[in-house]
């Protein structure tokens, strides 16, 4: 770390390790500029973002398109996307005997940084409670839990550039009791020590991964032991921190300030990103990009806003265009003027509107490319604004100019995908003490049944070419896990639609 307050120990790290340089900072709780560099990888200027992946791929973006598109660089990958066979079988990826296993397996270009965590961002709450030694996960076949030891071994095998330490966070729980918070802090400390210990066992020629220590989304006093130990014993062992609640940053010990901050505090909107950046967050995974894409919403905002409107009475601009809108059917303008992405330079709204309404997968591909390009420009201009010292006022203008939230979803999304769709039957058969699973409510069951019935009807009138694999997500929120319908397997595919194969 070569920042203004660099710690001597960090300079002695092996060359594989992360180098984070703070280029501009105005003390605690202030926006800052940095450069996040890993040897052999493209640097990320901060504030910046990582692309969120699902099963190792940015949703809708095949690996060749990832390479073609400058909006993609670093990725966040969740271990839970790779370990569904565990513990009955060794997850296949662990049998892949090549260096940089994870990178090779998901066919990521060699210069893209990979950050690995246990859970997806955002995680679907797992009803399997964490224990002293294990963390609950959700894989595409059901809930699992893995031990801290298993996690460390997986990281060693997969060789990501950076690993986010396990955190004991009861996701989805509205209120957490004091005792539970104590436990969170204790367990997280133990697990952070575990991963550090594991890295110490690596041979000198083994590539070293960097470690981001989680900072819990609870009050400073309740995790003070952990934070103190982090500062006293582990400062030279960690390379960054993972923040689960951006508002606790004011409680962050000073010693942690030079470290890059990766936020898992799920931003609900661009405004929310700006607020977090204003508190000093450096790196994000941005789940709303994907949600917008799946909803057919092409993001459409710039920073600073095109004109400075402080008049509260004027109508605010929408942050995105709902591409399902029939009025766009003959609109041959790009999604956003001046956007450099392929969707905007090579295609127009009319085509993308058609693709969505025809349920052609390419619609989501193009919107996803565009949405990433919009966020890339957003961050570029944010950095310029911080650099120019106009960030505060630019935020105000942005908030006055744009609506506070992204537009509501109106159209159908693509077919439910693996992580949204799981079956519990596979996992727990024959287990003596099955853990409590969330049961589907009547509402949800009815919605799913209606969906299935609608699917059947459609089969008769619409070419299955268009329909196969693309059933609507109505009534199913991306954040809520649902069971597979009875009779549908793990993959829940509409296989019956396919013509019989002759070969």
């Amino acid at each position, binding site marked *: 770390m070569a920042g203004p307050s660099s710690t001597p120990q960090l300079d002695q790290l092996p060359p594989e390790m992360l180098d984070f340089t703070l280029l501009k900072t105005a003390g605690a709780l202030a926006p800052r500029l940095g450069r996040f560099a890993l040897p052999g990888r493209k640097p990320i200027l901060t504030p910046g973002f990582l692309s969120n992946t699902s099963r190792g791929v940015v949703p809708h973006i095949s690996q060749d398109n990832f390479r073609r598109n400058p909006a993609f660089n670093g990725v966040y990958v969740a271990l839970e996307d790779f370990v569904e066979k565990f513990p009955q079988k060794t997850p296949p990826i662990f049998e892949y005997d090549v260096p940089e296993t994870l990178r*090779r397996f998901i066919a990521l270009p060699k210069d893209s940084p990979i950050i690995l965590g246990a859970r997806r961002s955002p995680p679907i709450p797992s009803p399997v409670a964490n224990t002293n030694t294990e963390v609950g996960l959700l894989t595409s076949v059901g809930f699992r839990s893995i031990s801290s030891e298993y996690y460390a071994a997986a990281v060693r095998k997969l060789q990501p550039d950076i690993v986010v330490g396990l955190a004991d966070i009861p996701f989805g729980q509205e209120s957490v009791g004091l005792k539970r918070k104590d436990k969170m802090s204790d367990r997280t400390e133990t697990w952070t020590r575990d991963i550090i210990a594991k890295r110490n066992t690596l041979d000198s020629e083994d590539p070293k991964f960097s470690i981001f220590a989680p900072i819990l989304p609870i009050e400073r006093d309740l995790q003070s032991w952990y934070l103190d130990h982090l500062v006293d014993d582990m400062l030279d062992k960690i390379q960054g921190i993972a923040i689960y609640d951006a508002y606790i940053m004011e409680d962050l010990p000073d010693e942690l300030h030079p470290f890059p901050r990766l936020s898992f505090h799920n931003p609900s909107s661009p405004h929310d990103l700006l607020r977090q950046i204003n508190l000093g967050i450096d790196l994000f995974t941005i789940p709303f990009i994907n949600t917008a894409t799946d909803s057919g919403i092409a993001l459409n905002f710039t920073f600073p806003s095109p004109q400075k409107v402080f008049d509260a009475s004027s109508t605010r601009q929408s942050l995105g265009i709902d591409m399902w809108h029939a009025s766009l059917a003959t609109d041959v303008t790009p999604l956003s003027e001046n956007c450099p992405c392929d969707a905007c330079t090579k295609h127009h709204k009319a085509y993308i509107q058609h693709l969505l309404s*025809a349920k052609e997968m390419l*619609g989501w591909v193009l919107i996803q490319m565009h949405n990433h390009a919009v966020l890339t420009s957003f961050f570029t201009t944010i950095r310029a604004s911080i650099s120019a010292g106009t960030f505060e006022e630019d935020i105000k203008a942005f908030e006055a100019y744009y609506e506070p939230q992204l537009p509501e979803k109106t159209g159908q999304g693509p077919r439910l995908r693996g992580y949204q769709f799981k079956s519990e039957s596979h996992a727990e058969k024959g287990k003596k003490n099955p853990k409590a699973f969330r049961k589907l409510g009547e509402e949800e069951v009815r919605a799913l049944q209606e969906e299935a019935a609608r699917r059947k009807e459609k089969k008769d*009138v619409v070419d299955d070419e268009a329909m196969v694999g693309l059933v609507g997500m109505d009534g199913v929120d991306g954040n809520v896990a649902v069971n597979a319908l009875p009779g549908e397997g793990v993959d829940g595919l509409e296989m019956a639609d396919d013509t019989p*194969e002759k070969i």
Partner: protein
Amino acid sequence: MAPVHIPSALSFELLGKCSVTKARAATLHLPHGTVPLPIFMPVATQASLKGLTPEQLEETGCKLCLNNTYHLGLKPGQATLDAVGGAHKFQSWPHNILTDSGGFQMVSLLKLAKITEEGVRFLSPHDGSPMLLTPEHSIALQNSIGSDIIMQLDDVLVTTSPDLARMKEAMERSVRWLDRCIQAHKYPERQNLFCIIQGGLDLELRRQCTAEMVARDTPGIAIGGLSGGEAKDAYCKVVDTCTGLLPEKKPRYVMGVGYPEDLVVSVALGADMFDCVWPTRTARFGNAITAHGVLNLRNAMYSTDFGPIEEGCTCSCCRSVEDGGLGITRAYIYHVTAKETAGAHLLTMHNVQYQLNLMKSIREAILEDRYPKFLKEFFGKLYDAKSQYPEWAVTALKGVGVDLME
């Protein structure tokens, strides 16, 4: 009716003929560039090929793909196509497009379609209101689409229909409809109208139809009504009979054919152009086409298979990282298929490229006059033993001088 000479917007350059079989290699010059024959054309039903961008499709080597008139007529509709300036601009595809007439889709997708002399009557899938697709309307739609090759509206009957009288009626009506299509065609100088030979599996009907269609002198000729579940022997006889009566200097298109075996045999029988949704449709179910047969990569046995989809394949998925490819493994396809749309995109790229490479190697073999040897190698790879070779293929190839069993 007297034959009308219609202008052509293509030129057919015959480059070589197999000295044993009826296979030909040619170059077809079309308004949006040159394509090699024989050719396989992937099907981008609704102006998009299963999640691939135009650049990705181009990268597979594709220079001619299909759009379906029926689908584009519904969505985005003729008014939008006119406003945007045709399907090339609509989907940003700089190469050639072929469109069907819409009739086949209507008859096969809509149970309530009814055929009269006027056209195909059907109920709108949107609101159930009665609609009519006439030859004139089909051509007008295809004129709006602006495809490089357009197809006549024909009266399609399943080949397996036992009703010979109806079959004869359909064949004769198709001829009459061709005349109406020729009359209605607004842009013969930039769009090539192909006739479609009908007549079911009755070779005499096919001969009569071929004579009538050839007399109309369209720029290209299609053999239609096949690939509807008929016996492969019967299919081969129809193709063989028709190509035997066709002029040498025109492209011959057999509609709806795409299994690799069907392609290599049909080329031997003298056909040049093929299309089929199968390679792209099957990709979405995890099926990879390879020289050794179709592999279903959803099978758990592939979950730890870290080899490429097909060894030696030059598609960007299969090429190794060292070779500038993505180095996608079978295990990774297993990991994402049916779970992420990108899994389907990857396999679609591979499958399309497989089909195009197959046609490319067929063409090279014809040009070097070693097609019989190519056929033997092809079947040798596809099957473990000669005893497994499909009888229809053995018989059909024997008919054009190649004995696979020798």
